């Protein structure tokens, strides 16, 4: 079932609009779920709210749909403040995590529902429903009931039901979480191609960084009701604003230590005495930690013998002992103890390579310019 969305008249006549969230604050009783959220989502953008469960991302999405009310702040769509509008007048299409297909209606009636509520003439309803079902490749299943469809098909019906009303904004609440791994990868590509085709401003809620990274233009990383950072996937990965973002997107090595003045600038000095030079702008005595990715480390020498080999240019030498290892297939991830702190390093794997046993002394080179000093 390798279906691709086909072009259709549905895409015509839709004009992309932006979404602004201005100083939104939302509490349930004494629990503050959203804390002073500001976001500016551009017209036609594929935008993600990414964060662990309980971070407030779904609450924020439901606020845009009109199912939650903020105590402060405003939501603007296409320049119009919609904060006071009830859910049924907002014209934002939402695809629910559970799909919420009505079991007492056929696929066709499900998709036609929104148009019927808008008192669209019958002939036009039929035409647009056909077009929408065509778009998601389910025209042949129009007379089935939702319970007779597979998970992926139900997902497509939910999508068709939402886009058929030509909403101003498309909201997706963890739309892929109920699909199996293989289908998830396929559906996210289909989602992306559909979104590009329609040019529809789309907000995608997920807790899966890989999902957000692969299909979204920009991501707002959320934690504890606060937007931690907004950026493209690459910006977030390469230049995380804080330790949470660094740890949530990919694997992060975090070292404790102190910022000290050394010859020719400042350096991050670990308890083991290793000094890693820092770029300008970090004052000696600054509080913070050093973060770098496993792929920023290179295994210099596997038995730890100091035989005179100097570290590569721009690299800092770390000496340690292998504590654990994980065989990942393409690479082997070693956890290395360097003077009481642990770092992870990835070694590429070729068939026939032997794995280093635990407790092997090991010498690592760290690309110093890739390491980032993070204050929190």
């Amino acid at each position: 079932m390798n279906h691709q969305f086909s072009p259709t008249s549905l895409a015509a006549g839709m004009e992309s609009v932006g979404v602004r969230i201005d100083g939104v604050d939302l509490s349930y009783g004494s629990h503050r779920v959203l804390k002073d959220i500001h976001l500016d989502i551009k017209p036609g953008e594929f935008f993600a709210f990414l964060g662990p469960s309980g971070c407030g991302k779904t609450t924020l999405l439901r606020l845009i749909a009109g199912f939650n009310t903020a105590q402060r702040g405003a939501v603007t769509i296409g320049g119009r403040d919609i904060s006071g509008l009830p859910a049924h007048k907002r014209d934002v299409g939402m695809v629910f995590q559970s799909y919420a297909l009505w079991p007492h209606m056929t696929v066709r009636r499900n998709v036609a529902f929104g148009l019927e509520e808008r008192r669209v003439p019958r002939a036009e309803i039929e035409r647009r429903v056909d077009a929408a079902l065509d778009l998601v490749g389910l025209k042949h299943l129009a007379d089935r009931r939702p319970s007779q469809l597979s998970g992926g098909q139900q997902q497509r019906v939910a999508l068709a039901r939402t886009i058929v009303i030509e909403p101003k904004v498309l909201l997706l609440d963890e739309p892929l979480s109920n699909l199996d791994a293989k289908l998830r990868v396929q559906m996210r590509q289909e989602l992306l191609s559909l979104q590009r085709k329609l040019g529809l401003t789309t907000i995608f809620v997920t807790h899966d960084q890989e999902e957000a990274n692969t299909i979204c233009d920009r991501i707002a990383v959320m934690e504890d009701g606060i937007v931690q950072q907004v950026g493209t996937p690459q910006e977030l990965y390469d230049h995380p604003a804080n330790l949470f973002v660094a740890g949530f997107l990919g694997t992060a090595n975090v070292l404790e230590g102190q910022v000290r003045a050394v010859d020719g600038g400042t350096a991050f000095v670990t308890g083991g005495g290793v000094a890693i030079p820092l770029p300008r702008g970090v004052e000696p005595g600054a509080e913070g930690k050093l973060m770098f990715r496993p792929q920023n480390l290179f295994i210099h020498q596997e038995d730890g013998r100091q035989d005179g080999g100097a570290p590569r240019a721009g690299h800092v030498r770390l000496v340690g002992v292998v504590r654990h290892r994980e065989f990942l297939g393409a690479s082997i991830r070693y956890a290395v103890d360097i003077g009481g702190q642990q770092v992870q390093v990835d070694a590429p794997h070729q068939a026939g390579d032997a794995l280093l046993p635990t407790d092997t002394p090991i010498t690592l080179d760290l690309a110093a310019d890739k390491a980032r000093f993070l204050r929190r």
Partner: protein
Amino acid sequence: MTSLALTRESIARVRPGPAVAAVLIALFLLLFLVVPVVQVIFVAFQDKTTGAFTLINFADFFQNDLFMRSFWNSFYVSAMSVVVASALALPLAYLTTRFEFRGAVLIQSLGIIPLIMPPFIGAVAMQLLFGRNGTVNLLLRDHFGISIPFMEGLNGVIFVQSIHYFPFILINLSASLKNIDRAMEESAQNLGCHGFRLFRRIVFPLAMPGYVAGASLVFIKVFDDLGTPLLLNVNDMLAPQAYLRISSIGIADPMGYVISVVLIVCSLLALWVSALAMKGKDYATVQRGGGGLARRRMKPLELVAAYAVVLLILVLVLAPHIGLTLLSFATIWSFSPFPDAFTMKHYGTVFLESGQYITNTLLYASLAALLDVVIGTAIAYLVLRSKLPGRQWLDYIAMAALAVPGVVLGIGYLRSFYDVPMPFTGQPLSGFWLILVFALAIRRLPYALRACTAALQQVSNSLEEAAENLGATKLRTISRVVVPLMSGGILAGFVTSFATAAVELSATIMLVHSQSDAPLAYGLYVYMQSAAGRGPGAALGVFAVVIVGLGTYLSHVIIERGRRERGQDH
């Protein structure tokens, strides 16, 4: 060698224990459910004198004006009871599930109070409150010069039955409303739907299966009920006709059997219609605990209206209880809004003269309930955990008792066991009190079985496997692990069976052989036949309500405690 080993293996796989239990249960069901019912059907198609197959009895039935009138009356009363019960249940269900309503506790009790009083017990009290010369009409006549025929003829049956049975609709409808995933409603709002259209297009269709389940149950219960029409002296309905034919003309008269077959067919038809309505509509739509529709706060005027509706229904629901209590303490209560004076002597009469009704009831109901949970647990276990061929049939047959009206079972027992003499005494077996216990057990078995099955389903298979893995035998595993874990469900099943068996009249009335063996429900019926007996009858009724009420409360407590304990495990 190999073939011998194989045989030994396959023998070992079929353990004798489950097979023996299955055979015993099958025998019991065969003897006390299948044979009597088949007997009834058989006789309906038999020529009275020659015993040959004939349809003449049915031709007689359809040509007899009284029977045809009874048939349509039964149908009309059942249908109207569904209508009136729906009118009572719909607003209540809507209120609790759609609004933030402080009276929710009130509505919950509304759903229980009627069920703890069997309709026939309240019937006489309702006559005194709502009858032509009852309290309400006397007051209306004095003040407004009008009267309302609440209790005239069929109206009385409809009135009493709807008040008693509307909780079935309320409970089922509320449950299915509560089970609707909130996203179902939100997605409709998201697509531009709201208000009454939202209710009509999304909420109500999704709650429909629950409504149909409740409504068909009400229809069947009313159609099959014997006690209420009898006590209200409405005889031109099917169940009373069957009873009167057998009790006045004799067990050889085929018309009682023909009516029985008609009753069974109608019950099956109603079950079939509800199954048809539910087909492919198993809207189990609760997902990941998001459940429940959105509730909104009521405006002041709506709040007043809501309380008015709830209070009116509460008054109606409490009317039989109040009337019965008043009657049990009244010296004389006739042609006056309230009793002339109050006395305790009726209770004295009941305890002095009719203590046997109470002790018999306690004995019969507890034996029947015990039998039910033992058989229910065994069937549940055989069906869910054994590989015995045909085990599903035990469940089917036990559940089939649902479609057998009490009158029919009673007639079947009379026919099957009347000619069997008891050892030593030589009296007919059908008059032996243990037969009555079996009848009660068969009638309540479907409910107990469902309770036991539900309880067993919550005991994970791996708990059992763990016990066996640690060296416990199958029987030890069942007694030390399975049954203790099921105990909450079993106990709830026992108490429910006990409480409802204690006030069963339909089958009882056919099978009671002598006053000394009679249970409470029969005594109540006998008392209510005369004006002088009403007081003691009402006192007996109060006692019955207390038994059922306590039972219901107890099973509620047990179920809640079980739920809490399970909740703590997580």
